[in-house]
């Protein structure tokens, strides 16, 4: 069925700015769910707070719009109570890695069967462009108008180190890859992390003179490459896209807890 049929039409058009990447991620997520063939009743979307987190309001599944940074804690509860349901957690980089960083590493360590889709726009969009733990060194935000001195997290390395059993990265430019990766992440049993490099033209783009949504997506096209590509020999600064971890491990479950 068309993507529109998975949306709560009374809330559309959505509030995201022109050219914001989050809508591309929402559309990719819907296509992935459609491809797997899940019924609306079989999916729970749990989000925190942020522009990205508003996705839970638009999607016509079971949805919970919870507290900033705490979505994974709520999602863990849902999954333990109803292991038969597919639980997806759309997150912002601030939501997942600043206020929610502790929930994130422990959800990964426990390897609970959830899918975290992290829209990494390298900024706090909703609150006006403050820096996040994903703002790269030297880049500007309202909290670091001359550029941030701190180093950013590498989300893929962080998720790997914390124990996630599926870790992937893509961008809003690579829309076909995006759908395919979210599909694989949902099918995977265990904690799945998909980092989607997304654009916030309104704050991150403007503050760093990166242009509008189109220009920022050209940046994703020109500054990323597939894992293992030869292009990185000449340009080691290219960010890798692809699936970094995909391991089958026993999954955390209420049954497992009961076993002594």
């Amino acid at each position, binding site marked *: 069925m*068309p*993507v*529109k049929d998975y*949306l709560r039409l009374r809330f*559309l*058009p*959505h509030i*995201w*700015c*022109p*050219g*914001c*990447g*989050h*809508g*591309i991620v*929402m*559309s*990719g997520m819907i*296509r992935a769910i459609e491809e797997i063939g899940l019924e609306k009743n079989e999916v729970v979307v749990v989000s925190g707070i942020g522009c990205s987190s508003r996705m839970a309001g638009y999607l016509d599944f079971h949805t919970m719009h919870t507290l900033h940074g705490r979505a994974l804690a709520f999602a863990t509860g849902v999954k333990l109570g109803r292991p038969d349901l597919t639980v997806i957690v759309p997150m912002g980089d601030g939501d997942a890695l600043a206020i929610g960083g502790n929930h994130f590493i422990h959800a990964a360590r426990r390897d609970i069967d959830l899918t975290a889709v992290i829209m990494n726009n390298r900024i706090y969009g909703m609150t006006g462009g403050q820096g996040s733990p994903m703002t790269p060194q030297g880049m500007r935000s309202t909290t670091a108008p001359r550029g941030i001195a701190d180093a950013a997290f590498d989300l893929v390395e962080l998720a790997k180190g914390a124990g996630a059993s599926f870790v992937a990265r893509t961008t*809003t*430019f690579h*829309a*076909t890859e995006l*759908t395919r990766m979210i599909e694989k992440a949902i099918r995977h049993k265990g904690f799945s992390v998909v980092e989607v490099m997304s654009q916030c033209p309104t704050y991150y783009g403007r503050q760093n003179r990166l242009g*509008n*949504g*189109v220009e920022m*997506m*050209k940046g994703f096209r020109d500054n990323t490459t597939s894992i293992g590509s030869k292009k990185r020999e000449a340009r080691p600064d290219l960010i890798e896209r692809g699936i970094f971890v995909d391991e089958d491990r026993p999954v955390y479950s209420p049954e497992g807890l009961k076993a002594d």
Partner: protein
Amino acid sequence: MDKEGKVVINREWCKGCGICVAFCPEEALILDPEEKAYWAHPEKCKRCGLCELRCPDIAIELVQK
């Protein structure tokens, strides 16, 4: 490719970001004077569906007849 399909734009939802226009491989789309996407060159369109995949506003759809 199915040359029968049609690209349909929802003008109520389109925010004129220009993403579909910029990345259409066949230059089949334009932004009209009201800053809405417009399927100006159906004859060039290959019905690849990329515009639909990349639209952040779910405002453009490749509809198969």
